[in-house]
């Protein structure tokens, strides 16, 4: 016990000395607040990114993941928005969910509450149908939807999420109407689809890649085909310009000091070309697409506009 105290004392003294001598970020552990329970998709993403971020931030910094679960991540992200602006508290950030919550619920943050560091994951939407439905191409699906408006039931994970927005885009583009069945989470939606209880589903590609033989995957909402499922065509190839997905990234509270911000964004930038990082992410079913700094902020603004438009045209609650 005493030895521990001694080392601790020495260590603190050391930190204090070096701290005053250099006072350069980072000189103490960086906390990453995850708005979901340990073991959730976002949590696994954060914990997979953490060692790489430690490597690129340098100085032997350690990253500590703290789970603040509840209210679909809103409790955690609110805590991030209100934390100290020193770069020692970061948080995970989900799109379009975090922006949609500012519309459909009272939220203690908005788009200007954050410093946008990097989006790391872009999990594109896919449209899937059950084997029983017989709608095994986009063409058949749209023909059926036009012939019988509202007859096709669509399972998805929730209202006001990326899958809902994709359906909204599809409906406006093609002049069709579907019946939405919002499950709690995508796994129950996928199961209902496999059991044939709903005809169609909107999921994310990471959620269907293990189930390719059990369901029809009609298309992926990306500009180019995904490496997760190279045999699935994009919607663009099929004549419907649909690009949409679920994004996961990192933010810090707004008003970060410039040098800290630059250093953090530079560290995230290095993830772009790290093959080892990409391998670790695809092992945990996270399609990587690193977008940092201003580009991420612009992406956030775009998605907020989309959410606002959908909210205005067809409020979901």
């Amino acid at each position: 016990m005493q030895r521990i105290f001694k080392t601790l004392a020495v260590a603190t003294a050391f930190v204090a000395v070096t701290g005053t001598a250099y006072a350069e970020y980072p000189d103490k552990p960086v906390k990453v607040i995850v708005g979901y329970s340990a073991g959730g998709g976002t949590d696994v993403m954060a914990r997979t990114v953490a060692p790489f971020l430690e490597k690129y931030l340098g100085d032997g910094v350690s990253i500590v993941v703290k789970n603040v679960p509840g209210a679909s991540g809103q409790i955690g992200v609110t805590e991030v928005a209100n934390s100290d602006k020193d770069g020692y508290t970061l948080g995970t950030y989900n799109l379009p969910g975090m922006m949609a919550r500012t519309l459909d619920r009272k939220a203690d943050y908005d788009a200007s509450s954050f410093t946008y560091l990097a989006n790391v994951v872009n999990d594109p939407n896919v449209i899937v149908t059950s084997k029983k439905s017989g709608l095994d191409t986009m063409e058949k699906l749209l023909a059926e939807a036009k012939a019988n408006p509202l007859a096709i039931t669509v399972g998805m994970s929730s209202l006001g999420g990326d899958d809902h927005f994709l359906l909204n885009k599809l409906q406006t583009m093609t002049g069709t109407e579907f019946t939405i069945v919002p499950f709690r989470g995508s796994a129950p939606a996928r199961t209902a689809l496999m059991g044939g209880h709903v005809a169609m589903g909107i999921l994310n590609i990471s959620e269907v890649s293990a189930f390719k033989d059990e369901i029809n995957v009609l298309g992926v909402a990306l500009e180019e085909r995904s490496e997760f499922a190279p045999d699935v065509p994009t919607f663009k190839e099929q004549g419907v310009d649909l690009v949409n997905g679920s994004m996961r990234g990192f933010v810090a509270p707004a008003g970060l000091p410039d040098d800290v911000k630059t250093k953090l964004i530079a560290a995230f930038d290095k993830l772009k070309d790290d093959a080892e990082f990409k391998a670790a992410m695809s092992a945990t079913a996270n399609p990587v697409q690193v977008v940092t700094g201003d580009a991420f902020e612009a992406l956030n603004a775009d998605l907020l506009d989309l959410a606002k438009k959908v909210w205005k045209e067809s409020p979901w609650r």
Partner: protein
Amino acid sequence: MYSDLIQSLPDVLAWANLAALVIGVLAGIIVGAMPGLSATMAISVLVPFTFGLEPLVALGLMAGIYNGAMYGGAIPAVLLRIPGTPAAVATTFDGYPMAQRGEGGFALQVAVVSSAFGGVASAFALMLLAPPLSRVTLLFGPAEVFWVAVFGLCSIIFLLGGNVAKGLISACFGVFVSVVGSDPIFGNDRYTFDRLELLDGIHIVILLVGLYALPPVIDLLESPLKTENSAGDHLGTEPIWRTFPRMLRFWKTWIRSALIGIWIGILPGAGGSMAAFMSYNEARRASKTPETWGHGEPEGVAASETANNADTAAALIPALTLGIPGTAVAAIMLGGLLIHGLQPGPMLFRNNPDIVFGFMWQFLFGAILLVFLGGSLATNSFAKLLKLPRPLLGSVIIVLMLIGVYSIHGRMFDVYLMLGFGAIGYVMDKLKFPLPPVVLGLILGGFAEENLRLALRIGRGDWIVLFQNVTSLVLVALTVAVVVGPMIKKRIVKARKTEGKV
């Protein structure tokens, strides 16, 4: 597939993995036995910690804790009438009266043997029948699951106790608590009063600790002097090889309860408590002496404990094959699998057979280990703990309650909520409102509502969707039979009696 099963065995028996399992089972028994701490909480605390462990070590710990806690929950349920886990509520019905009679030791032995039996049966179901059983899960869409929930809710009728009005008040209260949070379809807030902490609903552990642990603690403090028939004092433990032959007459209950537990396990969302309640009811219905139930019938302990352990491995069948966990604990374990890059789905068995099948073996060995680790050793040491002076025991349990509730989400809000439920629970307990309907109402109320409304959306508002296929109709028929059957039986018996008199 079965060759993969054999091939994964040596890895499981590697000493580090085996040690993890043993530690897990022991830790699980302790966690389950501590009033206030639950398996859900223990595994959610463990998950981030397993990030740096070898997959089989991490999974062994989790499998061990899950199995151990499901039995451990029976210890305070029998000795203190405080169920250690939500699934042990039904164990209190007969376990506590047995303990009051001085047969607490036998009750715990029945519990450990039954738990092990349920766990082994469940592990075999997982190892040998996972793919075909997951097909069964697919048959259950929202409409069918709604009927399962209704079936479960109907079993509340048998838990009402003497006063029907009070029993129904308890049930309504439980169901009402289940609707707090975001609406299952639209996601708008119901009774959250702008508290984000309430948005995901009220966690069962918070309610359970408040209702079941706080009132007995206050009782412990209220009457500080040792009362003569304090349950923990006299366990009357005999060696297990001598008591075991007395348990063999439960074999029918063991098999029936194991099947019920496995069935409830493969249906997502219901969980161990519903399995335990249902199997208790079924066992009582089948019993030749239903009047002894609730007054210390060892078969009641056997029914409930078999079923709640039979639920464990079975709950992983839909979790591993479809990604939908059967219980709250399985949901957290799914996270633990994800951390190690194990994606649920049909590919899982092909891509990572060593780990998946190793995990299944761990469930089997965990269940067997229960008898050795949870037998006389654990029971006797816990009985000693319960001989602590009552005020001291009470104040230690208060600390454990706080830790257990705080650690679920890491927030004090839940602790205050638990205090509120504790106050309600104390009044209910003193005025003889039955508590089990509250627990069942909370578990099944929201579950039934969500699935009903999903089904209605699928049917575009047409209620006929609820009666459109064979599975639904079978479930409706079962429900009716369970509710109406006993009434008719009573009538017939009554009629015969009057005839006999005339």
